[in-house]
């Protein structure tokens, strides 16, 4: 067996066994949030890292997925779990519209358009009170008391998402996505329908992100526009997860999710109560510094520059001897 498959097997077994060994709700919760971020980060990475269409608006799809699940309960009296089906598809429908508008633009203009799109959706969710209950948000009663079902479901979804993207990247679609990223004109001249394939990448990305949103509604039991359509906490966080872990790598967003959720939590809790409370205000600053550090020293992220990190660490050890 290859080294990478062994690593994967060990990580897999560890994650499967974790909640059986560690009964703490707190740590199970952190991992569930991490898994959600693995899904969002991987989806963002498919569009931005592999296809080269950098989105600053992934909150659109996360929010739409979450609201789909919530509205199914409040307006249609259905179970929010139906959102796991419809959330992904409605996010895709929204993505069709987003793509139709934003793919007229390239590069930074595309990024800005998605950023504006995210804000528009947040405003819609805030103001369309008949549908969304506006700032009041949507509150539902979670199905399970125990974290275990949520834990295994989100773990399964994250694994399925990574696997799906892995398969896509080994297929014609994947080759077309990276070709578009490298040179859109060259891609067209090689027979690649760049508009179509950019939209396919966006739709797949939106589907998984919407699914993550629907799961979030089910799990947290509460959403409002400021949470699920947040530029800061969703759209930008998605980018950070991708960049820190490593864009255009399969496992990058997973590593990025772990690091970012860990950091966020460390600061939110003021270093688990060890530091004074004002420290919790500093996380935005630290995220900013982290991004600068990663861009300067690990331009390909933790996974992309793993060899570099290893070399650096080994060299340090050698010096000490």
């Amino acid at each position: 067996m290859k080294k990478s498959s062994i690593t994967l097997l060990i990580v897999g077994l560890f994650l499967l066994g974790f909640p059986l060994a560690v009964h703490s709700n707190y740590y199970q919760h952190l991992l569930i949030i991490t898994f959600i971020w693995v899904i969002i980060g991987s989806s963002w990475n498919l569009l931005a890292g592999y296809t080269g269409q950098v989105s600053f608006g992934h909150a659109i799809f996360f929010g739409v997925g979450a609201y789909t699940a919530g509205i199914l309960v409040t307006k249609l009296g259905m179970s929010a779990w139906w959102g796991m089906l419809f959330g992904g598809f409605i996010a895709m429908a929204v993505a069709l519209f987003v793509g139709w508008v934003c793919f007229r633009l390239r590069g930074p203009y595309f990024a800005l358009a998605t950023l504006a799109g995210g804000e528009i959706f947040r405003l819609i969710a805030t103001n369309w009170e008949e549908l969304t209950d506006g700032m009041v948000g949507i509150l539902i009663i979670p199905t399970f008391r125990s974290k275990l079902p949520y834990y295994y479901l989100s773990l399964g979804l994250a694994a399925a998402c990574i696997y799906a993207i892995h398969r896509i990247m080994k297929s014609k679609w994947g080759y077309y996505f990276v070709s578009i990223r490298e040179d859109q004109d060259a891609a067209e001249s090689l027979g690649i329908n760049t508009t179509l394939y950019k939209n396919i990448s966006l739709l797949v990305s939106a589907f998984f992100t919407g699914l993550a949103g629907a799961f979030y509604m089910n799990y947290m039991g509460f959403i409002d526009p400021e949470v699920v359509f947040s530029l800061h906490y969703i759209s930008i966080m998605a980018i950070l997860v991708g960049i820190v872990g490593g864009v255009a790598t399969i496992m990058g967003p997973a590593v990025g999710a772990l690091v970012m959720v860990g950091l966020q939590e460390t600061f939110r809790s003021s270093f688990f109560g060890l530091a004074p409370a004002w420290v919790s205000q500093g996380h935005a600053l630290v995220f900013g510094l982290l991004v600068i550090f990663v861009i300067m020293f690990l331009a390909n992220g933790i996974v992309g520059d793993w060899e570099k990190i290893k070399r650096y660490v080994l060299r340090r050890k050698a010096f000490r001897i």
Partner: protein
Amino acid sequence: MALFEVKNLTKKFGGLVAVNDISFQIHEGEILGLIGPNGSGKTTTFNCINNFFPITSGDIIFKGQSIKGMKTHKICQLGIGRTFQVVKPLARLSVLDNVTAAAFCRVNSIVEARDVAHEVMEFCNLLAVKDRPAKSLPIGGRKRLEIARALATKPELLLLDETAAGLTPTEVDEAIELIKKIRENGVSILIIEHIMKVIMTMSDRIHAINFGQTIATGTPEEVANNPAVIEAYLGEDYAKG
């Protein structure tokens, strides 16, 4: 019937008429040379053929069908491949992945696409560098990669834009051999070239333009002896030599 025909093609950029009422035909298995001084409209003609630019007027016919206004990728799928004068490698991808991406034009599975890519890379003498990122190739390699990629889309007509420019003399000879081999495989070729050795030995016919207008058309010999061509393009030295 000609395989390919450009009819009264005109392309204006604002007030500048880059291509002015040009017409030519390419027959099956033929190599047509397109020559002209710098800025005479050669590359623009290519960009009009595969619709990077919408044409101002005229028509472009391929296999009896007008391709005017057709999407660039459709034109490639129909069977017109092209290379770029200013090469456009998929820079961070390996040579193999560059050619494989192009091969997906005709096949759907990765196994088939890799097979096609290997065939084409062998043909273009790229196998030795197949795992290198495209951006690490020297100019000669990049030019061959342009050709390999276009070939992987299995074109019936290949448009080559200054494939030999910037190559060493040995590489130029190799390029000539490669283009001959491509033709032997039944691909018709429209070639832009400044290097006389290449264009004169390769072309069945030559079409010469200047300031976007046709100034001569005929066999290499006829065109080389045409006074308008000598004056506009080849210069005094060539006329004497």
